[in-house]
């Protein structure tokens, strides 16, 4: 009796989940992004497999234990399906600005990312790339054919890029998506870090000093995790920088100024001030640096804290260890602080390897000071006259402005010319806010129309 009641309840739940998926299929997903529909196919496959288990539970001759196993496995699959629907929430056009999906997908294609990917917005101050690897769903007993087909249709690991929704979904900040896509290719960037192993030994001494004991298996595990995670963050920063230039610098640290001014250091990330310094060094170096070009056109120097003056700089190591211990535990604090010298040393190698990788695979995506100089000369003044930066004329026929170009011109206007932009009408925000809203709308329009122009050209 109880098993029958459980089976009926599960059957009802699975039916409602199928109904929910059917409703989701009717919403519009932006751009040419197939990812959300492929994900929903996976959910349907899970549900049909679960229904199969409930049918098997009715087979004659089963023991009570075998019946229960089919029912509980069906219940667990139902729970998976419910979570999987949540994974794809925020992907429809009511949540994420559809204008940006096309340019994002151009970056995806340009970087050679061929996995299933989808973009979504979440009402949180967070940008992230999530890896979704559920190929082991194929390991379940008696999978429905729809599940097998859905698993094969997805190119694993699937990727989900999250941007902030609504108020914090500011177009100039979307340069940070370049960093997130950097995570998608991080395993293809292979810097040679062997010259720095000696530094690691010095770091281990410091870690032992902070711990007050020798390094245990747990500590080794933690050290591995931090080294890997920090490497990956440096790689992603490098890709973001090479894809979008100073706009990435302004976006990432402008976002952190608003949403996370702390040290940033922990198991998953190196210190924010270190990341800022590393990118800033590159913005200001070279025979013709981004900073020189930007200064010449805007009269604004790109200082390290130009739009993130309140981002905290880490204190001396011993104080940092003390500050962190209370929050993340002494063991983790010891590893993070102890590894700082190693992080400083490997950053150059990681940036160099990222540069080499991108030059070898997608050189056309790299944003350089010459392009910035051209973009500012062609589009900054018109933008301040409310002409969106849709296309540029380089002496040949006009061509659509790239997403990186629009973002950089947008930041130049934001940081140096905002008072030249007439304010948007509306009851919200002060005059500066309404000028920025006007600029935001112009940039969004530029993204939309340059993408339309690109599609038109590609179909000719």
């Amino acid at each position: 009796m109880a098993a029958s009641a459980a089976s009926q309840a599960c059957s009802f739940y699975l039916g409602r989940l199928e109904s929910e998926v059917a409703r989701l299929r009717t919403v519009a997903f932006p751009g040419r992004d197939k990812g959300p529909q492929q994900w929903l196919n996976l959910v349907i496959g899970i549900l049909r497999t679960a229904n199969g288990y409930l049918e098997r539970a009715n087979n004659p001759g089963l023991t009570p234990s075998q019946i229960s196993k089919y029912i509980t496995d069906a219940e667990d699959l139902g729970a998976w399906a419910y979570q999987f629907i949540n994974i794809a929430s925020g992907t429809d056009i009511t949540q994420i600005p559809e204008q940006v999906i096309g340019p994002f997908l151009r970056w995806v294609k340009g970087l050679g990312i061929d996995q299933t990917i989808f973009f979504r917005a979440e009402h949180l101050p967070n940008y992230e790339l999530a890896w979704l690897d559920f190929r082991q769903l194929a390991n379940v007993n008696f999978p429905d054919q729809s599940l097998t087909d859905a698993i094969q249709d997805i190119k694993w690991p699937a990727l989900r890029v999250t941007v902030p929704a609504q108020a914090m979904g500011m177009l100039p900040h979307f340069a940070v998506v370049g960093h997130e896509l950097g995570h998608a290719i991080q395993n293809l960037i292979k810097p040679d870090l062997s010259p720095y192993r000696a530094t690691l030994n010095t770091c281990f001494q410091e870690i032992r000093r902070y711990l007050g004991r020798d390094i245990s298996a747990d500590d080794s595990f933690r050290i591995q995790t931090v080294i890997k995670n920090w490497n990956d963050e440096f790689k992603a920063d490098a890709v973001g920088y090479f894809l979008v230039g100073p706009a990435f610098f302004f976006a990432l640290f402008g976002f952190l100024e608003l949403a996370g001014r702390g040290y940033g250091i922990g198991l998953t990330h190196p210190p924010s001030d270190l990341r800022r310094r590393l990118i800033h060094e590159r913005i200001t170096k070279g025979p013709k640096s981004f900073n020189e070009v930007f200064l010449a056109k805007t009269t604004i120097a790109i200082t390290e804290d130009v739009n993130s003056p309140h981002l905290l700089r880490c204190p001396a190591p011993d104080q940092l260890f003390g500050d962190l211990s209370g929050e993340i535990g002494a063991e983790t604090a010891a590893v993070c602080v102890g590894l700082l010298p190693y992080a400083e040393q490997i950053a150059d190698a990681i940036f160099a390897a990222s540069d080499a990788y991108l030059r070898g695979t997608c050189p056309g995506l790299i944003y350089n000071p010459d392009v910035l100089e051209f973009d500012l000369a062609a589009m900054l003044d018109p933008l301040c006259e409310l002409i969106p930066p849709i296309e540029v004329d380089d002496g040949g026929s006009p061509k659509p402005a790239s997403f990186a170009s629009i973002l950089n011109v947008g930041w130049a206007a934001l940081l140096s010319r905002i008072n030249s932009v007439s304010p948007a009408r509306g009851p919200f925000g002060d005059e500066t806010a309404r000028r920025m809203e006007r600029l935001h709308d112009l940039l969004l329009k530029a993204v939309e129309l340059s993408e339309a122009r690109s599609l038109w050209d590609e179909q000719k």
Partner: protein
Amino acid sequence: MLQLSPSRDVGLRQTLEGGLAVIRNEGAIDEARRNVTLDRLVELFSEAANGSRAIENQNLLFATEQQPAFERFSVLFRYLHSAFGETLSTQLSETNDTLAALRTRSPTEAASLEKAATVIEKFLSALQRGAAVAPLEPPREFRFG
């Protein structure tokens, strides 16, 4: 990586149960299913054994250089470290060897089979315990402090 807890991984549990059935020669399991089950288990335990050896040898770039193996090891470390302690590396290695021998139908000693079965049973128990003790969603409270 967005993961569901391994304790909720239906496929993992079914694979481990299938592996036990193969080791103990229990129930009717067809050849194809037998081979698929053993292939999955060999992949799981060989990568985990590699990860364990790397940790023991303090190869601190292992996680960066061999992410899948590191992640496999992480799962088994989480669920089996308390049961096997410092012998975990050996246990994983020996289990892998036994499963690989079963896969190729090479001769295997009864003692080796029993040891492999014990490792898999402890893993299953740990997964079931993980599912059992997983707390319900706590009431949420939004405030500073």
